[in-house]
């Protein structure tokens, strides 16, 4: 097991290095001068020159690349051009807000998806099944930027049950979590249904039925328990995707997290901050995926580590 963990971690290093390199080159290989773009057309040559020096853009590209990687490794990615605050500390300040939103969305998705998928599988090819699967296709097809404003319109504007924006206690988490978790709930319910249908055909389920176990007992104790493993794995993998999905959801609900910081940094052309945000989201995603892989390997005895 230990060898497996080490191998998995070592395998992630080239990918992480690739991610850092890609983020670096997205900025540096683009047409035009980043300093000029940041300061705008009307900036004086002296100002552009000064910003060049500040950002190290006057040095050869290889030197910039090495110092960028050094910065990533030492958690020093420079400072925001507009606020002057350190990029890393700005990101750390908003990270908990995004994490709480992502975790809450995931919890909500799991709570909705598993019963829905189980119900559909137990009543396969009936109206219940088709209804549940239509609902899940609707969920997959509703992007956050459609669901968010519509939820605000109904539950904040018309009914006044929840706040339309901002972060003020648990109640403000409800609408953003539904918005962000909807697609995940849809994916998970389809997955629950398909793995459960497969499990219901296994020999041990037939054996349980032959012993006279009730339909409910078979479904919950024998089939669902075994079908849940892939569902939980995909839920974990989706947590990383939620961090990215938060970019739009946080913008809709003015949620003070990493997603909104990313969009603000991009709109303000604050490249050091934008670079840091994009890199943080991508590396978080990578880390969550590895973690899920390891947990999965640890809890499923059928997986071999060799």
């Amino acid at each position, binding site marked *: 097991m230990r060898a497996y963990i080490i191998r998995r971690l070592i395998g992630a290093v080239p990918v992480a290095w690739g*991610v850092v390199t890609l983020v670096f080159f997205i900025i540096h290989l683009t047409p035009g001068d980043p300093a000029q773009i940041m300061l705008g057309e009307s900036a004086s040559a002296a100002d552009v020159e000064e910003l060049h020096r500040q950002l190290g853009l006057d040095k050869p590209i290889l030197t910039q690349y090495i110092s960028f990687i050094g910065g990533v490794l030492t958690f020093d990615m420079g400072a925001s051009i507009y606020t002057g605050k350190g990029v890393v500390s700005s990101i750390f300040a908003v990270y908990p807000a995004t994490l709480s939103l992502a975790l809450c969305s995931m919890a909500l998705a799991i709570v909705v998806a598993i019963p829905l998928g189980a119900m559909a599988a137990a009543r396969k090819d009936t109206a219940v099944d088709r209804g549940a699967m239509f609902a899940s296709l609707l969920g997959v097809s509703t992007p956050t930027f459609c669901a968010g404003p519509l939820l605000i319109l109904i539950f904040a504007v018309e009914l006044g049950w929840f706040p339309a924006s901002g972060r003020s206690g648990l109640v403000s988490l409800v609408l953003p979590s539904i918005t962000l978790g909807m697609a995940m709930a849809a994916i998970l319910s389809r997955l629950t249904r398909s793995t459960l249908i497969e499990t219901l055909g296994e020999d041990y389920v037939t054996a349980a039925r032959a012993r006279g176990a009730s339909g409910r007992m078979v479904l919950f104790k024998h089939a669902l328990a075994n079908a849940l493993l892939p569902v939980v794995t995909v839920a974990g993998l989706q947590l990383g995707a939620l961090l990215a999905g938060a970019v739009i959801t946080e913008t809709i609900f003015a949620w003070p997290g990493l997603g909104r910081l990313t969009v603000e940094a991009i709109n303000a052309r604050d490249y050091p901050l934008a670079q840091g945000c994009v890199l943080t989201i991508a590396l978080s995603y990578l880390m969550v995926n590895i973690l899920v892989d390891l947990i999965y390997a640890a809890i499923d005895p059928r997986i071999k580590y060799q």
Partner: protein
Amino acid sequence: MKRILAGKAGRVNVPLIAGAAVTSAFVLAAVFAPWIAPCSPFDQDLFGGLAGPGADHLLGQDRLGRDILTRIIYGARISLTVGFVTVGISVLLGTLLGTAAGFFGGRVDEVIMRTCDVFLAFPGILLAIAVMAVLGPSFLNVVVALSLMGWTGFARLARGQTLSLREREFVVAAVAMGATPARIIGRHIIPNLAAPLTVEATFAVAAAVVGEAGLSFLGLGAQPPTPSWGAMLAEGRQFLLIAPSLTIWPGLAIMLTVLGINFLGDGLRDAMDPKSKLRGE
């Protein structure tokens, strides 16, 4: 054709027909926009700003008094053009790289698949957002950004299929007869990838439509006054209290388009791989 329209056990393939109907309706609206739209998408009527639905403007008017229905019809052009062009490029790039990786193996495979891993490490539209941030908003840049994100799925699919096709008798026979790699890939492998790639491409069009709307929603996609559903939603958000129709209609247009395309993909998958339905996918 009959085989495709019929689902499991000869039943009518409802998702395929429903999906095809909805998708064709939007495609037709996009193609014939100048003839079916009631107004010009750019004509302003400042006295009618934010007016609700009426006889002249069925779905109401936006902040500048432009007809919402017209802008939704024209918006289909942007969404679907970006969707189809992006997926076209992604399929081409992904299939070429994926089949090359699967066919040649070794170092070629290693380099292509590790590059793929790096791109896949960017979740959702994050990479597209980053690319748009530096390239600046324009139609071409949206296509570039979304294609950079979209090719990986096709590359993985093509590689996996190629790996299994490579071992099949007809490919082994072609190799034994001295066919060049280009001929084997072009004549024997790619034609056999068509079915899974078509299904994947259908879902990818839906993803690209969502991607384009998402970028426009964030202000990184199509710029005003271009009628884009994402940009219309973003503008509508500011007037949610006084003119909800600005948000509802473009939102419904996106949902319906994506739902239609996803249905089409589901139906195509059932038709081309009947086992998927039996497995309960």
